[in-house]
C-alpha cells in the first residue's frame, strides 16, 4: 500500500466527506473527521519519509503515463506543505468539537464537518497534483467548501463576506484557467513538468507572457496579495472561529505554494526575472501590503478582523521573500509559511476559545479577560509575540531569514522597512494586550472561565509548537532548504 501513499493522501478525506452524510450523527461525524484528518497526517508523514529516502515520487492516476493522464508528483516542497496542512487540520478539528457547538445550530454540524473535509481535500489535492487543470478542479472544491464554511458564521455579515469571496474567488479561478488555457494552447500539454520542458521553446511569445500574467493575477487574488485582499478581512472575521483558524493557517499558504510552483517549476525563475519586472512588482506590492494591512489592523474593533488584516500583512512578507529571487529568499518564504500557520492557528483558536465563552469577537468585550481565562489569553499573547518576531518564537526565525536574505541581496532599505513594519505589529498586538490585561471589563464576565480542555489542549500544542520551532528549526529550515535546493536545481541555480 505504501506505493499508493500519494493518492491516499487525497482520497482519504475525499471519500470521507460524502461518507459523513451517511453517518448523520453530529458527534460521530466530528470524531470521524478527526480520525480522517489524523490519517491524512500519518500519510503525509509516510510520504515525507519516502521522499527523503527515495526522492521525488510520481504516481500515475488511472495508470496512464504523464502527459496523457493525470500525474501526482510529490517532491520535498509538496510534502512540506502536505504535512503542514494535514497537521493543522487535525489540530483544528480537535478544537472544533466543542467550539462548533456554541457557534452553529446542531443541524448544521454535519454540513460543517463535511465542508471542512472537502476543503481539506481540495487543499491537499492542489498540493499533490502535477496537472495544471487538476489544480483548478481542486481549487474550486476548496473554494466552494470555504464559501460554505464562511457563510455558516452567525453574523449576517458572514453572508456578504462569503458572497464577496465567491465573486472574487471565482474571478481568480477563472483567471487561472485562462492562464492554463493559454499555456495549453502554446504547448499542447497540461502536465506541469511537461509544460516546464516545452515552454522554453515558446516563451518569447506574447501568449505565454499573458498566460503568466493571468495565472499570477488569479493566484494573487486567491492568496490575498495587497491590493487584491479585499475579500479576506471580512471572510475571516465573520466565519466560525474554527473555519477562520483553519483557513488562516492553510488556505493562503496553499495559494502561495501555487505561486512558487508556477514561478519555479513551470516557468523557471530565469524567465520570471528576466522577461518581466516581477521582482520589483512583488517587492512593492509586498511592502505596500505589509504596511497598509498592518496599519488597518491597528484600527480594528473586531479582534478576528484585526488578526485577519495581520494575515494580509504576513502574506506580504512571504511575497517579499519570493521577490528577492534567491535561494535564501525562497527559504525565508517557505519557513514563514510554516511559521505563520502555527502563529495564526494558535491565535485564532484561542480567540475561538474566548468566543466560546463570551459569544463575541469585539475587542472591547475582551477587556479584563486576562484574569478570567489566563491560559487562553496567554496563547493570544504568545501568538502575538510570534507575529511581532520576538526571539524564542517562530516569528523570529522567519524574520531572521528574511532580513538575512534581503541583506544578502543588498536590499538594505527594504530590510530596514521590514524591521520597521514589525513595530506596526507591536502596535496592533499591544492594543490587544492592553485591552485584555489592563482594561476593566465592559461586560459581565463574572462566570467566564477558561476555555474547555478540548480547545485548550490544541491551542497549547500550537503555542508550544510556536516556541519549539523557534528553538529547533531543523524541520522547518531543513525542509525549506532542501525544497529550495531542488527548485533551484531544476534550472541550474543560476541566481
Amino acid at each position: 500500500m505504501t506505493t499508493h501513499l500519494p493518492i491516499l493522501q487525497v482520497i482519504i478525506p475525499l471519500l470521507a466527506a460524502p461518507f459523513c452524510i451517511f453517518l448523520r450523527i453530529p458527534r460521530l461525524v466530528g470524531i470521524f473527521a478527526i480520525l480522517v484528518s489524523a490519517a491524512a497526517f500519518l500519510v503525509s508523514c509516510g510520504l515525507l519519509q519516502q521522499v527523503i529516502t527515495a526522492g521525488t515520487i510520481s504516481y500515475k492516476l488511472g495508470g496512464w503515463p504523464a502527459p496523457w493522464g493525470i500525474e501526482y508528483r510529490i517532491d520535498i516542497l509538496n510534502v512540506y506543505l502536505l504535512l503542514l496542512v494535514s497537521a493543522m487540520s487535525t489540530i483544528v478539528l480537535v478544537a472544533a468539537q466543542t467550539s462548533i457547538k456554541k457557534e452553529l445550530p446542531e443541524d448544521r454540524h454535519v454540513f460543517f464537518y463535511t465542508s471542512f473535509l472537502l476543503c481539506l481535500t481540495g487543499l491537499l489535492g492542489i498540493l499533490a497534483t502535477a496537472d495544471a487543470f487538476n489544480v483548478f478542479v481542486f481549487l474550486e472544491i476548496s473554494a466552494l467548501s470555504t464559501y460554505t464554511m464562511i457563510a455558516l458564521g452567525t453574523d449576517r455579515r458572514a453572508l456578504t463576506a462569503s458572497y464577496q469571496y465567491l465573486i472574487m474567488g471565482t474571478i481568480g479561478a477563472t483567471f487561472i484557467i485562462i492562464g492554463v488555457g493559454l499555456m495549453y494552447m502554446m504547448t499542447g500539454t497540461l502536465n506541469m513538468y511537461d509544460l516546464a520542458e516545452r515552454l522554453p521553446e515558446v516563451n518569447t511569445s506574447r501568449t505565454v507572457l499573458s498566460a503568466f500574467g493571468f495565472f499570477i493575477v488569479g493566484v494573487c487574488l486567491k492568496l490575498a496579495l495587497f491590493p487584491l485582499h479585499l475579500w479576506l478581512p471580512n471572510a475571516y472575521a465573520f466565519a466560525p472561529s474554527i473555519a477562520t483558524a483553519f483557513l488562516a493557517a492553510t488556505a493562503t499558504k496553499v495559494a502561495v505554494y501555487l505561486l512558487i510552483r508556477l514561478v519555479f517549476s513551470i516557468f523557471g525563475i530565469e524567465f520570471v526575472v528576466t522577461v518581466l519586472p516581477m521582482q520589483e512588482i512583488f517587492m512593492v506590492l509586498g511592502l505596500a501590503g505589509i504596511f497598509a494591512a498592518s496599519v488597518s489592523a491597528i484600527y480594528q474593533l473586531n479582534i478576528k478582523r484585526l488578526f485577519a488584516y495581520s494575515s494580509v500583512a504576513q502574506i506580504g512578507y512571504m511575497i517579499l521573500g519570493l521577490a528577492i529571487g534567491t535561494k535564501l529568499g525562497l527559504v525565508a518564504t517557505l519557513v514563514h509559511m510554516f511559521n505563520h500557520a502555527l502563529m495564526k492557528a494558535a491565535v485564532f483558536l484561542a480567540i475561538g476559545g474566548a468566543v466560546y465563552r463570551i459569544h463575541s469577537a469585539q475587542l472591547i468585550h475582551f477587556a479584563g479577560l486576562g484574569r478570567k481565562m489566563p491560559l487562553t489569553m496567554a496563547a493570544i499573547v504568545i501568538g502575538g509575540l510570534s507575529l511581532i518576531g520576538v526571539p524564542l518564537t517562530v516569528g523570529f526565525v522567519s524574520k531572521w531569514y528574511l532580513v538575512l536574505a534581503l541583506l544578502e541581496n543588498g536590499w538594505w532599505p527594504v530590510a530596514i522597512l521590514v524591521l520597521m513594519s514589525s513595530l506596526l505589529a507591536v502596535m496592533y498586538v499591544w492594543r490587544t494586550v492592553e485591552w485584555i490585561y489592563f482594561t476593566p471589563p465592559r461586560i459581565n464576565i463574572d462566570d467566564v472561565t477558561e476555555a474547555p480542555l478540548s480547545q485548550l489542549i490544541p491551542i497549547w500544542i500550537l503555542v508550544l509548537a510556536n516556541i519549539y520551532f523557534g528553538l529547533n528549526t531543523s524541520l522547518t529550515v531543513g525542509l525549506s532548504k532542501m525544497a529550495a535546493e531542488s527548485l533551484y536545481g531544476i534550472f541550474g541555480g543560476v541566481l
Partner: protein
Amino acid sequence: MALSAEMMLILTMVVPLIAVGGIAAAHKYPNLREAVTITASLILIYLVSSLYGITKAGGVVSVQGAELFSDLALSFRIEPLGMIFSLVAGYLWLVTTIYAIGYMRGHHEKNQTRFYCCFAIAISSAMGIAYADNLFTLFIFYEVLTLSTYPLVTHAGTKEAKNGGRVYLGILLSTSVIFLLLGIISTWYVTGTLDFRAGGIFGEEHRKAAAILLPLFIFGIGKAAIMPFHRWLPSAMVAPTPVSALLHAVAVVKAGVFTVLKVCTYTFGIDLLVSLPTRDFLLYLGCASIILASLVAMRKDNLKARLAYSTVSQLSYITVGALLATGSGALGGAMHIATHAFGKITLFFCAGAIMVASHKTEISQMKGLGKHMPITMTAFFIGSLSIIGLPPCGGTWSKWYLMVGAADTGKWLVMAVLMVSSLLNIAYLLPIPLKAFLSEDGVEKDRSFQLKEAPLPCLIALCFTAFGCLVLFFYPQPLYEIARAFLEASGNYVR
C-alpha cells in the same frame, strides 16, 4: 553541594524561573509567596558567589547549547564583565525583594503576584544577558527582559501607566528591532559569526561595514538610554518604586550599558573602534547626553523624574567610557556599573520610602523631612555623594578612572564634560537632603498624622545599599580586580 560549575551557570537562569512557578502557585498566601521569592534570591546569591569564586580561581565556565538555526547556538560563558553584572543583579534582587515587600504592602498594591513573577523573569533574563557568549543569545535575553518588565511598568493599570508602558515598550522594542537586530544580522552576514571574542570579530577588511554598524549598535541598545532614545526611562517612572529601582539601577539600564561595553570590546575590539570615523560622533553624542540630561534633571521637581534623568546622564558615562576605547575608560565604565547601581538604587529606595511614609513625590514638599525620617534622608545623602563621585563613596573610583581614560585619549572636551557634569550632579542632588535636614519644617505641623519612617523592610534595604556605597569606597579592591580581569580577558588594552 556537588554542583558542577556549568550546572550552576544554568541554574542562575533556571532558579528564578522555578521561583515564578512557586510564586504563581502560592498566589493565595502572600507570606509563602514572598518566602519563595526570598529563598530563590538567596539561592541565586549563593550560585553567583560560588561562580565568582570559581572564576576568580581561574576556572573557565561555559555552556554550549543546542544549535538553533543559521549555525547559531545559545551559549554561555562567564567572563569578568558579566560577573560584575550578575553579582550586582543577584545581590540587589534580594535587597529589592525585601524592599518591595515593605513597599507593596505599605502601598496596598494590587496584582502583587504578577509583580513578583515578572520580577523573577526579569532577573532570569538579566542573568542570561550577563553570561551570554554571543550576540544572538544576548539579544534573546535582551528582548525577554524588555517584555517581562513591561507588565511591571504598567502595573497600576491606569491610563497614565498604560501610556508610560507604551512609550517604554515602543522605544525599547523599536530600537532593538530596527537597529540592534539589523546590526546583529548584518554582523552575522559580514563576519559569519556572532561570538564574543577577545579583540573583536571584525577584521581590517570589514572596517567600512563596522563603521556603519557601530551607530546601529549604539542606538540599537535603547536600554543604554543615549539621547535621543532616552524617553522611555522617564516614562517608566509610572511604575511602583521597587520597579524603578530594578529598572534604573539593576536590570534594565545596566543590561543596556553592559551590552554596549561588551559589544565595543568583544565585537568591535578596541583597536578597530579607535579608528572608526563614526566613533567620535557617538562619543560626542554621549557627552551631549550627559550634559543635557543633567540640565533637564535640574528642572524636574518630581523626585523620581529627577532621578530618572540623572540615570540617563550617568548611563552615558559608561557609554562614553566604552567609546573612549582606552583601558582606563573601560575600567571606569565597568566599575561604574556597580557603583552607580548601588548609589542609584539607594536613592530610589529613599524616594519610595518617602512616598510610602509621607505620600510626597515632589521635591519642593520635602523641606524639613529629615527630622521625621532621619535614616532615609541620611541614606539619600550617601547615595547622592556616590552618584556625584565624592568620597567616601564608591562612585569616586569609577569616575576617577573615567577621567583618566578621557585624559589618556587627549580628548579634553570629554574631560571637561565629565567635570561639568559632576558639578551639575551636585547642583541637582545635594540640595534635596540638605534642605530636608536644614530648612524649617513648614507645612507638616498641621498634618493630623504623625510622620514616621517607612516600614521596616524598606529601611533595612536602603540601609544595606547605602552601606554598600560606603564599602565600595573603602574596599574597592575586589571590584577593581574583576574590572582588571575584564581588561585582560578582552585582550585589547595591553599598554
